[in-house]
């Protein structure tokens, strides 16, 4: 006997197809209008032992996709087991801040920049820490963060060479990403970063030049838009494989200017799948100008994300893989909630979250120059044990396998509210975007 999974979501496309998504496997299937009635019947009532003779392929695919499950399967156990797998010790994710300084003065920034570049003792400690860990690992990923990481290119190089040597000697699957403002990302530097296995980038552009420069100007004043765009165009001339998510943060003030920005970006990058669009609302993230930020209300923000994503797709700009990946099982669990993930500050301070660097509860340990760490496991536990462990509403949610109630443990701790991901809040729009994105990438 086969029954429909409780982690299924079904929705219609603008052109009448039926999309079925399963949050435990991440699979998405599309059915044409002729198939819809029979599929809806199966999704409502399940199936006996045998599939109808004309539907064996479809039923096999539904079962492989986890959309139909054997009726004796306990899906809550599946979700719990999936969550427990976060405790694997053969995987390591480090968010590394080679410097905590920045050359930008973004109006919504929440960092204090009280520390500069990573010193030699911390660099040595981090190299030894990774060397010591490497033999126990299957895979490792590094997220370069800051401050502005490219202000410390030499530190990135020194650490990357050491990490690569450690990981290569044990045949470990290693990948890296970087959040940079793009100002110093010349083509030469970019090609060097690719050599160090940094292939996924997030670069923020918040509007056409006048809007962007007001929100993301140089510290002390000065424009940045033209230089970032110049760098991106220069990078585009390379044949290398990479992904750049161009992130657009919008607020009430910049909202009317986003379409113009998308046209500028499309003019340069449309049709190049390496350049992708990530739309996010500005939030009051803890910076000193929070009170003056013209943030959008939730309703406007949730609507605008998908309208601009759609507009980008229509102009030939693909949606960022970050969005699609965030809808895979475990894909929306924040690194702060993962036991095998740590943030390494430039002073050797260890954190869980990159957004609350000043809060004591976030200071979970110290890295020493011999590669050892002193970790406060009580603080660590505060970050890693919230979510569906403690929230019965999250446990019963169809999206549970994806975020595990842990999309943002900081938000939950600060507000007591449930941190549901943007994709879940507008799941039908999000699935439609994945559908449209897949069509545009196939062209």
């Amino acid at each position, binding site marked *: 006997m086969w029954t429909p999974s409780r982690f299924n979501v079904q929705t219609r496309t603008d052109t009448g197809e039926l*999309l079925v998504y*399963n949050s*435990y*496997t*991440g*699979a*998405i*299937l*599309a*059915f*044409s209008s002729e198939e819809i009635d029979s599929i809806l019947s199966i999704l409502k009532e399940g199936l006996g032992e045998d599939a109808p003779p004309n539907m064996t392929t*479809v039923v096999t695919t539904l079962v*492989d*996709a*986890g959309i139909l499950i054997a009726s004796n399967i306990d899906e809550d156990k*599946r979700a719990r087991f*999936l*969550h427990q*797998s*976060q405790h*694997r010790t053969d*995987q390591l*994710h480090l*968010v590394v801040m080679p410097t905590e300084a920045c050359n930008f003065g973004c109006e919504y920034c*929440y960092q204090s920049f009280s520390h500069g570049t990573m010193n030699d003792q911390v660099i040595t400690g981090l190299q030894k820490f990774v060397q010591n860990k490497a033999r126990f690992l299957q*895979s490792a*990923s590094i*997220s370069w*963060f800051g401050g502005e990481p490219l202000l410390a290119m030499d530190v990135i190089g020194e650490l990357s060479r050491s990490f690569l040597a450690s990981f290569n000697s044990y045949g470990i699957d290693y*990948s890296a990403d970087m*959040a940079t403002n793009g100002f110093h990302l010349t083509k030469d530097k970019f090609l060097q970063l690719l050599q160090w296995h940094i292939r*996924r980038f*997030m670069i923020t552009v918040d509007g056409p030049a006048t809007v962007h420069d007001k929100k993301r100007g140089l510290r002390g004043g000065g424009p940045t838009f033209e230089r970032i765009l110049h760098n991106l165009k220069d990078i585009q001339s390379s044949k290398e494989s990479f992904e750049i998510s161009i*992130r657009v943060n919008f607020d009430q003030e910049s909202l009317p200017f986003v379409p113009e920005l998308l046209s500028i970006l499309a003019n340069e990058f449309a049709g190049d799948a390496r350049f992708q669009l990530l739309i996010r*609302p500005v*939030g*009051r*993230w*803890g910076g000193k100008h929070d009170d003056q930020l013209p943030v959008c209300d939730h309703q406007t*923000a949730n609507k605008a994300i998908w309208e601009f994503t759609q507009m980008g797709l229509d102009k030939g700009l693909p949606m960022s893989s*970050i969005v*699609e*990946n*965030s809808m*895979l*099982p*475990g*894909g929306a*669990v*924040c690194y702060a909630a*993962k036991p095998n993930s740590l943030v390494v500050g430039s002073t050797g301070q260890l954190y869980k979250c*990159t957004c609350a660097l000043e809060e004591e509860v976030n200071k979970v340990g110290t890295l020493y120059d011999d590669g050892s760490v002193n970790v406060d496991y009580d603080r660590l536990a505060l970050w890693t044990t919230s979510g569906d462990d403690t929230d019965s509403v999250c446990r019963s949610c169809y999206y549970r*396998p994806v975020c*595990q109630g842990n*999309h943002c443990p900081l*938000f939950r701790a600060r507000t007591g509210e449930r*941190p*549901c991901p*943007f994709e879940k809040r507008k799941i039908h729009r999000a699935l439609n975007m*994945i559908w449209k994105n897949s069509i545009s990438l196939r062209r």
Partner: protein
Amino acid sequence: MMQVIRKPIAPAGSTTAGQLVKSVPGNLNGSK
């Protein structure tokens, strides 16, 4: 015709499934 838009990330029940996705730092949830 049925189309597979996205394949299942790993066989159902596999413990590797949730681990294949890379986290990206940078205040992506925006809910604060």
